[in-house]
């Protein structure tokens, strides 16, 4: 009996305390595989696992295999901070990828900056890299860029007066603020400004207010998760015939399935090349990277790729590229940071990255593609 207890205790201690072998390059990740942002974190985690396997099968980086240490923070910043500390202090990783949401990214960032470990975030919020912090980078476009891309298209169509309906979740609230602040630069007036909570099941009252506002020419819906799908369905039920714009937060097959292809018909949103892999021109610079990732992902998991998995793909690609250029299997974190900052012309699924000391996002608006949903699929707007 006592032996059993001792053994069980020893096993528990070993599970927590075992230091791992060092002949590998360890990459840390903390993602929201479960929880409210699970729809984003799950493809991110799957992508990292798949790519690390692929890289190792092809001989690793600098002749050493990669080891991925991945934790599920459930989207809770307090957990994310604990896991980030664990990755740095206990697992001794060379860099951290992660932070599915802006909140968790900010929590990880403070650890990364304190401990001076390179960190590549997968979240949209502009505050992650603005002002620039030395060790923090990110791969997705900011919500401000999404607003700019949408407003560019509106401007081209002569739309000057719009209604907005935003989620009050972190993503929706942040994008709403950014859109309001850049609207004027594009000569756009936001004449109706409605909101809904993440759990709401019906947006008819807010949309009725929008319908009753005089002189609107289009409606914009910043949000992610189920909310935008409900907005889209209610929008059609109310028979509103203005153009509907969604954000990059719903750039995945799940949105079309949830709202129904007939309801989503004609919806426009800024997305990445990943969603239109087959429609890319043969000489498109991103075509090769996008098709390779998509085929690998669909082949393994038998589900469509999403923009979010693409963010993780790009983060790992940037890291591997920097590790290779730095040339050391046990890199000094400061050297690795320099190598990441020197990234130039790296082709990812989201865009082509070139970092600099002032720009830790490294993308411009051209990487964003304006898409329209047609017949339940994505079509680039010319």
């Amino acid at each position: 009996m006592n032996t059993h207890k001792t053994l069980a205790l020893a096993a528990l201690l070993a599970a927590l305390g075992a230091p791992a072998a060092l002949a590998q390059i360890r990459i840390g990740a903390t993602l929201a595989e479960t929880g409210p942002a699970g729809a984003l974190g799950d493809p991110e985690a799957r992508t990292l696992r798949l790519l690390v396997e692929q890289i190792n099968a092809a001989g690793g980086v600098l002749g050493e295999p990669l080891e991925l240490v991945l934790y599920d923070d459930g989207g809770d910043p307090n957990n994310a901070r604990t896991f980030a500390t664990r990755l740095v202090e206990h697992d001794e990783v060379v860099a951290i990828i992660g932070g599915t949401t802006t909140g968790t990214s900010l929590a990880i960032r403070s650890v990364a900056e304190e401990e001076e470990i390179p960190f590549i975030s997968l979240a949209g919020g502009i505050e992650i890299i603005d002002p620039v912090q030395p060790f923090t980078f990110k791969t997705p476009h900011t919500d401000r860029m999404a607003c700019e891309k949408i407003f560019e298209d509106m401007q081209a169509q002569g739309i000057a007066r719009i209604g907005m309906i935003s989620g009050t979740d972190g993503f929706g609230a942040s994008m709403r603020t950014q859109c309001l602040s850049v609207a004027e630069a594009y000569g756009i007036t936001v004449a109706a400004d409605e909101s809904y909570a993440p759990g709401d099941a019906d947006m008819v009252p807010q949309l009725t207010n929008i319908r009753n506002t005089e002189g609107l020419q289009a409606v914009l819906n910043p949000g992610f998760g189920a909310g935008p799908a409900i907005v889209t369905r209610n929008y059609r039920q109310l028979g509103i015939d203005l153009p509907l714009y969604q954000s990059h937060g719903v750039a995945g097959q799940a949105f079309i399935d949830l709202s129904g292809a007939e309801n989503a018909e004609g919806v426009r949103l800024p997305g990445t090349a990943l969603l239109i892999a087959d429609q890319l021109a043969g000489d498109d610079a991103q075509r090769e990277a996008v098709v390779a990732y998509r085929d690998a992902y669909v082949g393994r998991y038998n589900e469509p790729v999403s923009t979010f998995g693409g963010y993780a793909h790009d983060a790992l690609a940037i890291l591997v590229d920097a590790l290779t250029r730095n040339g050391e299997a046990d890199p000094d974190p400061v050297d690795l940071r320099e190598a990441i900052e020197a990234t130039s012309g790296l082709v990812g699924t989201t865009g082509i990255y070139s970092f600099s000391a002032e720009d830790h996002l490294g993308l411009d608006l051209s990487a964003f593609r304006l898409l329209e949903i047609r017949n339940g699929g994505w079509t680039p707007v010319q």
Partner: protein
Amino acid sequence: MKPKHLSLLVLTLLVVAAPFFFPSGFYYRIGALIFINAIAVTGLVILIGYAGQISLGHAGFAGIGAYACALAPEHLGLPPVAAILLGTALSAALAWLVGKPILRLHGYYLGVATLGLGILISMVLSNEAQWTGGPDGIAVPDLGLRGLLRDLGWRIGAGELWYGLAGTVMILGAWLALNLFDSPTGRALRALHGSEVAARTMGIDVARHKLHAFVVSAVYASVSGSLLALMNRLITPDVAGFMHSVQMVTMAVLGGVGSVLGAIFGATILTALPQLLTVFHQYEHMVLGLVMILVMIFLPDGLLPSLMKRLRGRDGE
């Protein structure tokens, strides 16, 4: 030596000795989290264990303490230490105001009323984005203690500092709670826990004592929230969320809600277990639920008191 002093001695020894067994700096972070959770759970021991009143909304008070530390330095120019005190004052005032009517309720009704209070606070924190930064949270200013120590010539890591600081506050909190246990107020609380009618017959002002217990436990939760905010340097409305409230009650019940040491033990297990279970994190909630069910069935007094009883029983044989 009185059992009270023995408890405190054991606790202090554990806090001081544990770092000698830490294989890496990460364990200081886990230790500090355990202590911060234990502070809130000690407050719940006073409310649930001593006075027999349930609360499913104490994370709300942790939220008030946390956001006081984020907002008061920025808007009122208070130093963070004063912000902690402001948070406790606000939490105590709110607990007193709300506690007056809702502590008339019993059992499930009290549980639901406190649940509502917690949810209200968390909704305010996530919806008033112009003040609180919304669901993405808000940065919290530095406590400044590390800089102060550095100026005094003592360089110390953030992990070690917060381990020491949270540990000290937890021991202080445990000391106060243990003192309360044998005081006239503590005896009155335990009497009304046993039977409100009997307590009233003995001349105990039941409503006033319940309210005191509620306010004191809100202060514990608020301090715990403040420390969490100052340690993490970032706070989101999750700190006031329903799951955090449930987590606190679970920690208290698991370890033994009638005993301060037991509750701290519960906080230790439920904070450390998810770190052990990262390998099977999909099953984490299942394992926690299973542990909870088994403890309620086989060790209804909670882990520590039941184990102590077992041990004492064996000694007597």
